[in-house]
C-alpha cells in the first residue's frame, strides 16, 4: 500500500517516534549515568573502577545467560506452535510450571532417600525426564481438549480458550498441591562455584546453561535432520501444501506440542534449580517473557527463539543496574531510581510492548512482517 507523505508523518507517527526517542534517551542517560558514577569528571567513563567492578558485570552476564537459556527453552514451544497453528499457546507457561512442580515430588523423594547426592547426575536426569514426560502429556491433553476442536474458529477464539486453559492448569495445581511455595531440594554438588578460565561461576548456573544448550542442540538437530522435523518445517511453511504432499498434519501438530511441552518441562526443572522453589503461579511471568523472546527472535524461527531468550535474559539481568540505577534526575532521584530490581519486569514488559509495536517480525524473522500477525 502506497502511503502518502502526510500519512507517514501523521500524529500517530510522531507519537511513536517520540516514544522511541524517549526510551532511547532513558536508556542512554541511564547507562551513561551508571558508567560515570563516581568518576572525577562528568566527561570520563570509569565503570570498572566505580561501584560495580568487572566481576559484578560478569556475574550478571552469567546469571542473564542462565536465565535466558531457560527462557529460550520455553520460547521454543511458543515459536513452534505459532509457526504451525498461528496461535499463541497462552497456557505454555503453565505447562512449564506443571513439569517443574510434578518433578519436585520426585526430587524431594530422592532428597529424603539421599539418592540426590549419591548419584547427582543420574538423579538430575531422572527428575528432568519426569518433568519432560509430565509436561509433554499435559501439553498433549491441552492440544486435544482445548485447541483441536477450535482449529478452524476465528483467531481470538483459540486464544481465549488458551487463557482459560492457563488458569485451569494453575488453579488445578493449586487445588492439588496447595497454594504455598515448595522448597526444591538442593544438590550438594551444585553448590558453590567452579573456576572456569580463572573466573568463578556459580555451579547451578553453569549446570543450567550446559543442560539448556544440550537440549536445544538436540531439539534443533531433531527439527533440522529428521524426517519428522522436515515435516514440521514443511507444515509451518505452508500447512495446505504440506498436507497435499502427504504429510499427516494432525500428527505433526501433536508432535510439535509434545516437543514444545518436553522442552518447557525441562526448562521448569532448570528454573527451579536456580530459584530453589516451585509455586503454582510460577509459570506465568516466565511464560510471558519467553513469548517476548520468541517474538524478539522472529516468531516461528527456532534459532531466533534461542537468540531472543538469551538476549532477553541478559537484558533483564543487567538492565536494572545499567539503565535505572544511573538514571539520576536532579531534584527527584539524585542517586538514581530506588530499588531498581523491583522494575526488572517493567523492563521486560517494555521490551515486549516495544518489540510488538516496532518490530513484530523480530530480529531474525521477515515472514510475518506484512501478514496479519
Amino acid at each position, binding site marked *: 500500500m502506497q502511503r502518502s507523505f502526510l500519512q507517514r508523518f*501523521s500524529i*500517530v507517527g510522531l507519537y511513536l517516534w517520540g*516514544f522511541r526517542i524517549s526510551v532511547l534517551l532513558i536508556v542512554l542517560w541511564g547507562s551513561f549515568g551508571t558508567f560515570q558514577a563516581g568518576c572525577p569528571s562528568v566527561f570520563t567513563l570509569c565503570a570498572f573502577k566505580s561501584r560495580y567492578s568487572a566481576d559484578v558485570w560478569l556475574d550478571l552476564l552469567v546469571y542473564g545467560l542462565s536465565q535466558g537459556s531457560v527462557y529460550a527453552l520455553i520460547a521454543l514451544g511458543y515459536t513452534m506452535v505459532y509457526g504451525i*497453528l*498461528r*496461535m*499463541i499457546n497462552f497456557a505454555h507457561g503453565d505447562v512449564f510450571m506443571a513439569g517443574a512442580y510434578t518433578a519436585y*515430588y520426585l526430587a524431594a523423594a530422592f532428597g529424603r532417600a539421599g539418592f540426590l547426592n549419591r548419584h547427582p547426575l543420574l538423579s538430575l536426569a531422572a527428575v528432568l525426564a519426569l518433568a519432560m514426560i509430565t509436561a509433554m502429556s499435559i501439553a498433549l491433553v491441552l492440544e486435544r481438549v482445548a485447541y483441536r476442536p*477450535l*482449529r*478452524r*474458529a*476465528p*483467531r*481470538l*477464539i483459540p*486464544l*481465549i*480458550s488458551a*487463557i*482459560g*486453559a*492457563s*488458569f*485451569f*492448569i*494453575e*488453579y*488445578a495445581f*493449586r*487445588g*492439588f*498441591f*496447595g497454594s504455598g511455595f515448595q522448597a526444591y531440594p538442593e544438590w550438594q554438588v551444585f553448590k558453590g562455584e567452579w573456576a572456569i578460565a580463572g573466573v568463578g561461576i556459580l555451579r547451578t548456573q553453569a549446570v543450567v546453561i550446559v543442560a539448556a544448550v544440550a537440549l536445544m542442540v538436540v531439539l534443533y538437530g531433531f527439527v533440522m535432520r529428521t524426517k519428522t522435523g522436515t515435516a514440521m518445517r514443511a507444515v509451518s511453511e*505452508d*500447512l*495446505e501444501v504440506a498436507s497435499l504432499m502427504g504429510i499427516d498434519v494432525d500428527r505433526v501438530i501433536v508432535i510439535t506440542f509434545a516437543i514444545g511441552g518436553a522442552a518447557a518441562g525441562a526448562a521448569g526443572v532448570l528454573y527451579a534449580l536456580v530459584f530453589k522453589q516451585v509455586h503454582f503461579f510460577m509459570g*506465568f511471568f516466565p511464560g*510471558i517473557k519467553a*513469548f517476548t523472546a520468541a*517474538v524478539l527472535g522472529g516468531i516461528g524461527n527456532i534459532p531466533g527463539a534461542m537468540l531472543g531468550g538469551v538476549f532477553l535474559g541478559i537484558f533483564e539481568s543487567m538492565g536494572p543496574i545499567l539503565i*535505572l540505577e544511573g538514571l539520576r534526575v536532579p531534584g527527584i*532521584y539524585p542517586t538514581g*531510581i*530506588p*530499588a531498581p530490581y*523491583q*522494575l526488572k*519486569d*517493567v523492563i521486560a*514488559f*517494555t521490551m*515486549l*510492548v516495544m518489540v*510488538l*509495536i516496532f518490530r*513484530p517480525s523480530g530480529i531474525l524473522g521477515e515472514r510475518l512482517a506484512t*501478514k*496479519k*500477525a
Partner: protein
Amino acid sequence: MRSDRGSWGRVISGGLIFGAAAVFVSLVGMVEALGVRVIVIGVIDFGRLLLLLIGLGAGYQAARRGGGGVLTALLRGLLAGAATGAGLAALLVLGSVVNLRGMFINASPALFEIISFGRGAAGVPLVVAAGAVVGVLGAAATLLPGTVRGPLGAGVTATIVIGLFQELLQIILQGEEGVRAAIRQLIFVPEGLPPRGALEVFVVVLVASALWRSRRPVVRSWISKRPPRTQRLLRLLGLLLAVAVVLVLPAAGGLFISQVLVLVGLYTLMGLGLNLEVGFAGLLDLGFVAFFAIGAYTVGLLTSTGQYGVAHWSFWAAVPVALVVSLIAGFLFGLPILRIRGDYLAIATLGFGEIIRLLALSDALRPWFGGSQGILAVPKPNIGGFEFSGPMQIFYITLVSSAFIAFVAARLRDSRLGRAWMAMREDEDVAEAMGINLINVKLLAYGIGGAFAGMGGAIFAALLGSIFPHSFNLLISINVLALIIVGGMGSLPGVVVGSLFLVGLPELLREFSDFRFLVYGAALIIMMQVKPAGLWPAAAVRRELLKEEPVGAVTEGPVAERAEA
C-alpha cells in the same frame, strides 16, 4: 443383542472420562470444601451433589448417544455410571494402599469417608454400584418426554437453589410473625432445609411449572389479543416491578447481599467497558485493569485526606476528572498499539497492564502513589449531609452509574461509531476500504472503554476507602474477560448476566471462591466450544446463528489465511 463392540467401548471410555472428572474434583478439594454447605439436612451436601451430577451426566450422555430401545439406553447408562464409579473406586483403593496426602493435600481421610460412604476400602463395590444406579437414573432422564422432564428438572433445580442459599433466605425471611416468618417456618428449620421442606419446595415448584407449561400458550394468546396500549402498559408494569425489586434488594438482604451487589455492579461497569473493546470493536484487551486502577488512583489522590491526597476534593468533583483521565489514558494507551492486530494486541495490552501495576507498586513512584502501602483515607461520598457510608448506600451509586453507562453503551452500539466498530471487528482491511478511519475508531474504543472502567475504579476507591496496587492485578482483567465471554461478547444484558453468575455466585457461595479461577478457566474452554456466542448472545450474533450458513462463507483461521497469502 446385536451391537458393535466399538459403541460399547465408547460408552465405557465415556464413563471413564466422567470418572476422571470425579477423581479430579475430589483431589482438587472441591468435594470436601463444598461439602460444608449442606443442601438438604441429612440427605445431601454440595460436595456430594457435585459427584452425583457427574454420575448423572455420565449416564445421560451415554444414553443419548446412539439409538436402541429403552433397555439398551438404560444399559448404556448403567455401564457408563459404573465406569464413573470405578474411577472413584480406583482412587479409593490407591488411597488405602499409598499415602496420597504427601502429594495431594486434599486426599484427606474426610474425603475418602465421603467417597466410600464411610466404609473405607471396603466400600469399593458399593461405590461402583452407586455409580451404576446414578447412571441408570441419568439415562432414564433422556427417556422422559419433555412435558415430564421440564417440570421435574425445575423442581429439582429449585430445591437445590433454595438449599444452597438457605442461610441467605433465612436472613431475608427473618422476623417473628407475618408472611415472611410463615414462609420461613413452613420450609426451613433453624439449621437449614429439612427433607420435609425440600419435598414441599419440590412439589410446589413441580406443580407450578407443570401448570405454567400447560397454560403458557393461553396466557400468551391472551396478552397478544389485548390492544397495543394495554400490552405496552403490561410491559412497563413488569419493568417497574423489576426495578422496584432491585431497589429494595440491599435493604431486604442486609449488608452481605449489598456488598455482593456492589461488586456485581462494579464488574458490570468494567464489563460494559471491556465489552465495548472486545465485543463491539474486536480488540482483545488483557490489561484492562489498568483503567480501573487509573480511575481509582485519580479519585484517591484527589479526595484523600491522608498523606498522599493532593486536593481534598469531594467525590463528586473527582469522578468527572477520573473519567476524563481514564479516557485520556485510553487514548495514550491505544496510540502506540494501533498497528498491532489480533493476538499480538492481547499480549501487548497485557504488558501495558502489568507495567502500570508494577509502577504503582514500585518504590520509585512511592512519593506520589504510596508504593505497596497504597493510598489511605479516601473519604466516602456524600450529598447534603447524607453519607454513602457503606455498601448498602454505595449500591445505589453503582446502580445509577451502571444503568447510565449501559444506556450510553446501547446508544453507542446503534450509532454510526458502533457500526464502524463492528465493521472493524469483522475485518479491519475491508472496514478501512469502506472509508472508516481506523485510527479514530480504535482510539475511541480504547478511550470510552477505559472511561467506563475508570468509573468503576472511582466507585471502588470510595467503597474501600483505600487503594492498594495489589487490588489491580491481572486476575481482575481475566475475571472481566471471563464474564463478558460467558455472558455473550457484544451483548449488554450478557454483561449483567455474566457478572451475576461469575461475580455474584462465587461471592454468595463463599466455599466456592477458592475454585473460582479453576471454574472460570473451564468455563472459558467449554464456552468457546459449545456456546461461543455466550449465555445471552447479542442480537446480531443471534441472527447470524439462526440463519443458514451463507454460500461461500469465509472460513477463518490459519488455513484460510494461508490460502490468501
